[in-house]
Each structure stands twice: as structure tokens, then as C-alpha cells.
């Protein structure tokens, strides 16, 4: 049993809950780990999220590849955009699948009556969906290299893709937590999320495109789009951490 305080200790001061910062950090990290552990276990049992994302992505890549086969140069030019389209749509599917199950079974109530920081619930969800999407990207990138013969293996490209994905998922968990409570959730999530993340996604696509040529771009050429992607990540994560409790609580 945990060393819990007595419920009947009168609320004369607020010092009761001022536990040591290290203990609070441990509790926070414990909650994060628990949420990620749960999501991974559920996925391991059901393959519900990853399989849907993977099948959709593979179908999209194959369709794009054959649709643009006659114009190979054109395909190469737009491959970075195609990559982002596939990532965004697959991530949106994953977000919906991941959050809908919790909402339908009302197991979210069990999380909300637990004595845990709401921001840890948010961050745990972001990390777990991010893990699934990164895994998907690890499968997608070799396919894009094979189909479009572009240097998606470059570390800078991988880093930009990871940064762009973080921002999209950070915004996505927040928006999906709201849209999931509505009857039109399947439609509402992409309708809200795609325009919201458009500036960051366009910047990420621009930065990735810059690295697709035979020569590496200079820092000044990619500085602005990369800075915008990082700013979007920070903004969305901060917004999520500070507003998630308003979204999930009454």
C-alpha cells in the first residue's frame, strides 16, 4: 500500500500536499510510464492503431507511386509533400483510434478519478501515439527511398520529420480529446487539426524538400522553416500541458 495521508486530517493548512519535489517528480514520471505502458500493452494485444495506420500508409504510397509512375521526375519533386500527406492522414487515423476506445468504454473516468496530474495523462498519450507514428515512419522512409530514390536517410531529414511529427501529435491529442466527445468526431478531428497544424507541416515539408537535392542546403536556407516547426512543437506541447485538464474535466 502507498503511504497515503488520512482523509480525515482537517484542511487547516495546505502544507499537506506539498510533498517533496523529488517525490512529486517520481509520481509524475510513474504516471507517464503507466500511461505509455498501458497504451503499448493494448496495442500489443489488439494491433488496433498501428495496423490501421500501416495498411493505410502502404496503400497510399503504392497508389501515389503508380499514379505518378509516368512522371517520375514530378513524383520525385513532390515526394516530400506525399510523405507528409501520408504521415498526417495516418497519424489522424491513429489518434482517432487511440482516443475513441477510451472514450467509448468510459475508462477515461477511471483515469480522471485517479490522483494523477492531468498533464501527465496528456503527455503519456502524446508519447505513446508518437511512438506508434515514429514506428510507422521507420517503415515508410525506406519505402520512399526505394520508390522515389531520394535521400530520406539523411540525419537532418529524419530529425525534421521527428520534429514535425511531435508538433502534429501534440496538437492532435489535444484536439482529438475535444472532438472525441462529439458525435461527429471522425470528421471533426481532421477538419480542426489539419488547418491548425498547416504552418508547421508546410514548414517541415519545405525543410525536408531542401535536403532532397544532391547538395546540402546552407543553414540560412532552412533556418526559418525549422525554427517554425520547433516553435510550433513548443507552443502545442505547452498548450496541451496547461489546458488538457480543461478539455477532459467539466
Amino acid at each position: 500500500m502507498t503511504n497515503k495521508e488520512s482523509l480525515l486530517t482537517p484542511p487547516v493548512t495546505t502544507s499537506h500536499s506539498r510533498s517533496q519535489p523529488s517525490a512529486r517528480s517520481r509520481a509524475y514520471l510513474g504516471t507517464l510510464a503507466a500511461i505509455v505502458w498501458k497504451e503499448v500493452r493494448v496495442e500489443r494485444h489488439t494491433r488496433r492503431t498501428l495496423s490501421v495506420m500501416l495498411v493505410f500508409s502502404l496503400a497510399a504510397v503504392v497508389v501515389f507511386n503508380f499514379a505518378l509512375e509516368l512522371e517520375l521526375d514530378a513524383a520525385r519533386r513532390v515526394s516530400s509533400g506525399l510523405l507528409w500527406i501520408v504521415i498526417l492522414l495516418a497519424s489522424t487515423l491513429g489518434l482517432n483510434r487511440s482516443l475513441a476506445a477510451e472514450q467509448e468504454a468510459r475508462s477515461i473516468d477511471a483515469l480522471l478519478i485517479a490522483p494523477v496530474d492531468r498533464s501527465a495523462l496528456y503527455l503519456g498519450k502524446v508519447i505513446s501515439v508518437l511512438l506508434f507514428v515514429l514506428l510507422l515512419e521507420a517503415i515508410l522512409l525506406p519505402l520512399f527511398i526505394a520508390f522515389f530514390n531520394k535521400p530520406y536517410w539523411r540525419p537532418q531529414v529524419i530529425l525534421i520529420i521527428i520534429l514535425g511529427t511531435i508538433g502534429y501529435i501534440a496538437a492532435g491529442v489535444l484536439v482529438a480529446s475535444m472532438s472525441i466527445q462529439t458525435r461527429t468526431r471522425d470528421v471533426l478531428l481532421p477538419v480542426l487539426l489539419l488547418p491548425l497544424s498547416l504552418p508547421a507541416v508546410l514548414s517541415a515539408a519545405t525543410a525536408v524538400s531542401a535536403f532532397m537535392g544532391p547538395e546540402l542546403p546552407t543553414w540560412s536556407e532552412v533556418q526559418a522553416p525549422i525554427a517554425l516547426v520547433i516553435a510550433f512543437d513548443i507552443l502545442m506541447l505547452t498548450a496541451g500541458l496547461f489546458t488538457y485538464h480543461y478539455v477532459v474535466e467539466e
Partner: protein
Amino acid sequence: MIEVRGLIKNYGALRVLRGIDLKVQQGEFLTLVGGNGAGKTTLLRIVATLLNPTAGHVAVGGWPLPQFADRVRRHIGLVSHNALLYGDLTAGENLDFFARLYGLQEREARVTEALQTVGLLARQRDAVRTFSRGMTQRLTIARATLHEPDVLLLDEPYTGLDQEATRLLDDLLRREQVRGRTILMITHDLRHGFHLSDRIAILSRGVLVADVERETMSAGDFLNFYDEVTTGRVAA
């Protein structure tokens, strides 16, 4: 242990609770009954820290809500007609997850003990979605009491249970009562509610219209009294 004074709850323009006054002493078992739409679930969800009151005072263990919701949450367990479990996880994984959330030490031993208490140890590696309604409800009790809460909140726990499962749930609740937990249950099952609890209160259209000590009335008299009060044939 639970104190509610002048509680009002509005959903937009709709007033669901109209000035509820209610006290549940430590170790007491109070059943709240009433028709559909009486406001029972809303009241329970406010005490469970899942909803905020529009006006009035609600406190658990002397801690006002929602200001001290974080403090109170560690001490309450909620059993709902929704299982609040993850159907795709096994019984053991579900309890282990909640043990992690509550920061319990010696998790494995506590999970094993909880599964043994509700008679599901042999099914600990089975996914919850394969369980019958009765088994799921027993696991829900195990989940809700895993952290040894002082207050147990039950929202229609008998919904969909057959006779055998009902009997098992009765036994589990009596055991929790003996352990000294304060229990607030809402139910449509008047007989069950009456026999299990120390007190039984009647909620009608957002107003607490009666609060009866079980010992002062027989079950039959209570059923008649309930009909009279809820149909408005006599003044409460």
C-alpha cells in the same frame, strides 16, 4: 465523511439538482434511490470529483470540492455500470495499471490479493472483454478497492447481473462494509438497496424528498413509502 449542503447543479439552463442536503457518516452505507432523471448519477459524479457543483458545498472527509479534489481522489473508489476497465487488457494488467496510477507499492502482491478476493485469480491472464458481466463487475470492485479507499461510490452496480452474480456482489459489498468503508450507492433496485444499507434516501426531480434509517421500516413499508413519495401522493 461525505457532506453535501445546498448543492445545485445546472446543465446549461436545466437545473438537475435543486439544493441537496445530505450527510454520510464514516463507515455508513447510504443508498440513494429515485426515478430516471432524478439526479442520482449527477450527485454521485460530483462527489467522485468528475463534475463540479454549480453552487453549494460538497466535502469529502472535510475537504471541500472541487478545491481539494486532488487530495480526495486518493481516498475514493468508483464502481459504475460502465466497467471503467480496458477490455483489451487482461484482468491482471488492468489492476496492475491502476496500481501504477495510484503509486501502490508491492504491486504484484496487491494485484494477486485483489484478484483472489473477487475470485478471479485463475482468470488473471484473460482479456476482460472475454468476461461475463458478473465477472467484469467483480473485477471493477477489485479495481475500485485496490488502493483501499475510505469512500466507495457505486453507480447502479447491479445493472445486468444475474442472480448468482448479484449474490457474489452482495457478499463483496458486505465485506467492504465490514472493513469500515463509507459507501454511497445509487440503484433502481429498491429491495437490494434497502437490505444492504444503513440508510436509504430518495431523490426525486433533483430534490432529496426522504432520508430513512433502515431499522425504522420494513422493506415492504419502504416500497410503499417510496411509491407514495415519488408519485407525490403524500408530502415527504
